[in-house]
């Protein structure tokens, strides 16, 4: 007996330039699959993904040059050193003169003392920081982050938040998928709530509150619990 599972169904949304966009939903809602479709790792059976107007399915390389993806669990190359890893990622994205950029990122995430260490000697949090540095080294126009703060220390988390706000201010788009609703509430301009692969609500927090018939000062957590409990 074989059955086909539809992870994401009829989901359509737009993320504008300079916007930080939050993707939230219960476990198994289809958040990671959505991010994987956007970064070209998973292939949607229907529909299309446009990155800055470029059709990802048709011009994959061109679209991917604009993207960066931070997966939920960091799996960097264990047997490269930290600086070699970043150099390798710079080569993948043809970054000219990457050294100053690498130095800056290592300083920002307090990895400069570890740059000659093998990745397998790093802690889980440090590996996550390295993965974030890899995503930022080629200055992507669209940044996709899947649970980016898991395992990161408070200073690293602050640095990341500052960088995301700064990049959005420069006109880049950021999509964050997270269960840390306070993070989404703090950072995101607009939010998309999905459940069982389908869109439940989309808009600013205020708009979602209205849709959920929640009070005007209700937190995203309260709104989320209400809206996923009683689908509208």
């Amino acid at each position: 007996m074989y059955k086909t599972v539809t992870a994401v169904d009829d989901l359509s949304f737009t993320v504008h330039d300079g916007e930080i966009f939050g993707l939230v939903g219960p476990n198994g809602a289809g958040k990671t699959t959505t991010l994987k479709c956007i970064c070209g790792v998973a292939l949607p059976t229907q529909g299309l993904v446009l990155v800055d107007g470029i059709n990802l399915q048709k011009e994959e390389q061109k679209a991917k040059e604009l993207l960066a993806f931070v997966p939920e669990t960091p799996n960097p190359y264990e047997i490269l050193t930290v600086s070699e890893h970043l150099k390798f990622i710079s080569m993948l994205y043809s970054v000219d003169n990457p050294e100053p950029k690498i130095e800056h990122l290592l300083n920002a995430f307090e990895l400069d003392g570890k740059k000659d260490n093998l990745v397998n000697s790093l802690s889980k949090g440090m590996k996550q920081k390295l993965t974030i540095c890899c995503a930022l080294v080629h200055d992507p126009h669209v940044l996709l982050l899947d649970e980016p703060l898991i395992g990161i220390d408070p200073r690293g988390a602050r640095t990341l938040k500052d960088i995301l706000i700064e990049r959005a201010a420069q006109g880049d788009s950021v999509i964050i998928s997270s269960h840390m609703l306070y993070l989404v509430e703090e950072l995101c301009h607009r939010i998309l709530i999905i459940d069982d692969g389908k869109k439940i609500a989309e808009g600013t927090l205020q708009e979602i509150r209205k849709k959920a018939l929640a009070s005007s000062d209700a937190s995203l957590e309260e709104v989320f619990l209400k809206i996923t409990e009683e689908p509208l």
Partner: protein
Amino acid sequence: MKALLYLDVHIFKNTVIATLKNPKQIIPAIFMGSLFLFPLITIYSIDAPLMAAPYTTETVKPIIFSFLTFITWITVIHSTTKNTLVFSLPEIDFLFPSPLKRKVILFNRVATNYLKLAVQYAAMAGFFLFVFSSLYHFVFWPRILFLWLAILMSMIFASNLGGIVSLVSSHFSELKRSRNRNILILVLASFLGIISGYIFWQVFQGIPVVQAVINVLNSSVVRILMYPMAAASDVAVAWRLTVGVGLKLLFLIVLCVVTTIGVLSVETHFYEASEAISRELWESVHKMRRQEVVVSESFVKKMRKIRPFGDRATALIWKNLVGMIRDIRSLLPTVFMAIFLFAMTFFRGGEFFNALFFLFFLVFISSGYVRWDFREDLRRIEIIKLIPDSNFRIVLSEIAVPILFSTVVSYIFLGVTFFAFPHSESKLVLTGFSVVALPLFSVVMVTISNLSTLYYPPQTNSQVIPGVLSLIFTMMVLTPSLFLLMLFIVLDKMYLGLLSVLLLNAAIAFALIKLLARKYRFFDLTSS
């Protein structure tokens, strides 16, 4: 492509440096290397008398042919339902979302795989051919080249064929893939049926079975049906380069190039399917490394529940007992192995004394299979360390279940052996000796395995080395007992010898448990 070359070169360079820098890796590597090199140097140095090879080219060729054919069929059948293009997790996380072309990523994976295959087969073929060529006095070079090329080319061909099948199959639904697999299995079954029929017919004509098998595998019908593998087997046994061998070699090279181009030219988005199988494989490899158990839920539901017992550390005995009974992975092979070994010993006949060796071997095997002690609990060692009890009691409770299991199993077979073998003068004494010696031997074996796990945790070390070191340690510990026994047998005081062995092993078992308790007390997984 430049980035991938940079990656491959740096991974290779760093792996070599990391291995050379780490004494925990280099010392066992030297040991393993010397295990292989020592027989090679010995064989090369000694002037061995001329020996007649037990196999001729005509018998080796069908063996190679059937082996290569088997591998090819298995690869292709497996590829119909499972993606054979396995990538590492860093490749999935960093290369798949990158702007590199999919075909470049695929080519890099395929090329590095082939390079690894080439090195592995060169080492394997070189080792075995060197041993045989030294023993049976035949030329090593250029024979090794033909053997290596033939195996490598046919394996690349099989791998490419599997790759093409899995890439094409990735377009199909699960149902269609399953149907395709069943069709292929049916074709294979028919092929094997025809071959078996042909062999039976020849045997019926009065030809010996082995000769009949060789005749069928060398027959033109079978060779034409699996011609690439037949050509590879011809090249594998070649002594020198002739026109025929050269043409077959050329055919294999062309086949490899064409199928490699085939793999790279199949238009498909393989990322998703490859990611699923790669993550699955990675998970199972890590489960194996962590030595996690495989438990069948339906099996567990059918089993009778064991009421909890024990207090503080002794509660671990209940936990390990429940785990062992529910862990089919360790239980069933041990039981089957015990029955098989017993049957072998029983049918061979002989003295009661000889049959006892089987029982000690059974303890040796079962203490390796049943791992419900520190070997299983290493992942939750922090929780175990919180138990408010003495280290000695915790260690005793941890190792109790495998000892209990191997003792019970060996006692059952000891009872059967006692009644199955004819009465002899020493039977009663030897049985009495075994009743005490078997659990003592089990304590020694299980404790050594636990010591090696705590000294070389599988989470942070390779699997092979601790196993080998554990085996060497076991031999070192048991050698004095053997010497003692032999000495007393020579002095014609066997009973005194048996008693001495028991006392010596009791002392060894106690010392090992104390050592284990000490190691456990200072054990810290993060620093191991």
